[in-house]
């Protein structure tokens, strides 16, 4: 049963298995374990980014394709839901229309980019995705009547997913059973299903073929695989998954704008999460996203405390000021790449 669910993809390391179970349990019971708005928000973001990072790993780690358009597909999914909710009003049918439309647009766009540019050199594909993603970001900010421009869109979601909705009058473990809780579990279970689907894809015959294409496209072709079709299909699947992650984000934060979905900063964050977790491992996405989002959210608090504790030491306290958190994130990244070149997962697996 468990083996089928996880497609027989064993963690291959006790420590890794323990960490994954810990993260899984923490996310599953987050509303009860970490009460409060901010922790729940962090948990939901971790769920969404696990899907987003895993879908990028499908492309980068498993197929060996470098793309800079991943946030574009993430954005298309989010804007699909955002626009549908703005135009049609809050309702589950609007969400359905938005999800389907966004995923379709992403898939078609990915197909076009793939067929147009995957035939040639890898660097060309990377450049094309960069150009298309930049053009798309400009387009979104220009078409402000439709997309809200730089301000983005704020909209209402179905009442059943808001704090105003009461599921029951009593409290469970001191937690109110409201729409927000429902929204979290919607995000959690969708993310879980999408992650397991991707785990199945990489462990399928198709997934093995992707690895073959990554390792040696020349030989893959020589044993009968049309490499271009495999690369294109991987691009389309990965784009569709990123879109679905975007749709979850749009539902969860009830706002969609360039900064939360399309920015190059997020693209770089995704890259870092894949590399920190371990490319081509899927479980790396879980570790990478969790570590990174936690650091992003709590490093500033931690540093604020550290600054106060070191007030007496002039230079140290300046270095530890919360504004410097990006610097420290950079240091953490360099250290992690230096000590774990195959990511946390690769490192743990080698230890056995």
């Amino acid at each position: 049963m468990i083996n089928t669910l996880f497609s027989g993809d064993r963690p291959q390391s006790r420590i890794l298995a323990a960490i994954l179970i810990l993260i899984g349990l923490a996310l599953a019971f987050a509303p009860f374990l970490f009460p409060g708005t901010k922790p729940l928000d962090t948990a939901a973001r971790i769920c969404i980014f696990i899907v987003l990072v895993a879908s990028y790993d499908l492309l980068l780690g498993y197929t060996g394709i470098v793309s800079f358009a991943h946030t574009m597909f993430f954005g298309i999914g989010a804007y699909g839901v955002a626009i549908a909710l703005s135009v049609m009003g809050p309702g589950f049918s609007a969400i359905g229309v938005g999800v389907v439309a966004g995923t379709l647009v992403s898939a078609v766009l990915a197909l076009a980019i793939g067929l147009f540019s995957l035939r040639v050199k890898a660097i060309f594909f990377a450049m094309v995705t960069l150009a298309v993603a930049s053009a798309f970001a400009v387009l979104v900010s220009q078409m402000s009547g439709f997309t809200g421009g730089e301000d983005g869109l704020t909209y209402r979601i179905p009442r059943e997913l808001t704090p105003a909705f009461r599921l029951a009058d009593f409290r469970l473990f001191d937690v109110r059973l409201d729409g927000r809780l429902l929204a979290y579990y919607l995000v959690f279970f969708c993310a879980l299903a999408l992650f397991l689907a991707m785990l199945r894809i990489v462990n399928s015959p198709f997934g093995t073929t992707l690895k073959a294409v990554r390792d040696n496209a020349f030989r893959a072709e020589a044993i009968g695989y049309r490499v271009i079709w495999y690369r294109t299909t991987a691009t389309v699947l990965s784009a569709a998954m990123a879109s679905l992650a975007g749709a979850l984000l749009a539902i969860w934060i009830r706002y969609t704008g360039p900064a939360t979905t399309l920015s190059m900063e997020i693209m770089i964050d995704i890259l870092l999460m894949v590399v920190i977790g371990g490319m081509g491992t899927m479980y790396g996405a879980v570790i990478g996203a969790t570590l990174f989002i936690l650091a992003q959210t709590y490093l500033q608090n931690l540093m604020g405390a550290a600054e106060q504790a070191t007030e007496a030491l002039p230079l140290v306290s300046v270095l530890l000021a919360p504004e410097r958190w990006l610097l420290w994130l950079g240091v953490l990244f360099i250290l992690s790449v230096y000590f774990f070149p195959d990511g946390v997962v690769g490192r743990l697996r080698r230890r056995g």
Partner: protein
Amino acid sequence: MQAGADGHDCLRYSTQLPEIRAVTREPPVLETENLTIRFGGHVAVDNVSCAFERGTLTAIVGPNGAGKTTYFNLVSGQLRASAGRVRLNGEDITRKGVAERCDRGIGRAFQLTNLFANLSVRENVRLVVQSRANRGFDIFSRASAHVELIERAEHVLAEVRLIDKRDMPVSALPHGDQRKLEVALMIALSPQVLMFDEPTAGMSVDEVPVILDLIRDLKKDRDRTILLVEHKMDVIRTLADRIIVLHNGALVADGEPGEVMCSPIVQEAYLGKAPEAASTEVVHG
């Protein structure tokens, strides 16, 4: 019959071959017609017309840089011909891609080992079996659930004596084993035409017989057409039904092993250049 100038034996044989075939044999499985490729000014394969019949093993010899590998690349599609045609079972495949030629039954083992280095030995072979079974786009089943594909892969691994190393990553395999796996990948395809490009090069003496036995078994299966580039003359002598000689990209001799090997053209073009390769290596029988 008048034996003309030295070496004409081979040429005479070559020109007579089509007539013999027309009377007694079925049409060739593989045929190249005026096949030519130029790299800039350099003609690497020069107007090669040659036909290969079902159930035969043809050795292709020639000095380094003669164009043997390039000829293979033109047949299996890695290179596109500048002129001429390649036909498989009578059908023109000159414009077809590599994967399509593979589907139609052209198998290729490479001179320079060309594997999936980060995957295990078994996965390498399973990929081939899976391609053969047309399961590459199977997205939602578990690869490990396709027991019949895995069994077929393991069967091939047993044939090349790599079964004990099936779980090793290819990058950790010694060179000789990588050469065996290279051959295993082609055999797993079970193609109609098998092209071996120096399959035993770089193998230790005790590993060579495994490959030679394999080729011998494939030959017994009279459905296959085998092309073998090989430098070791005693290997050729025991396996080949026919030898063709390439020199500077051109086909200079074509005939039965005994005939071709004695021909002065071969002596000059090939054996003369590398006498040690012809006489040493590998014990007879």
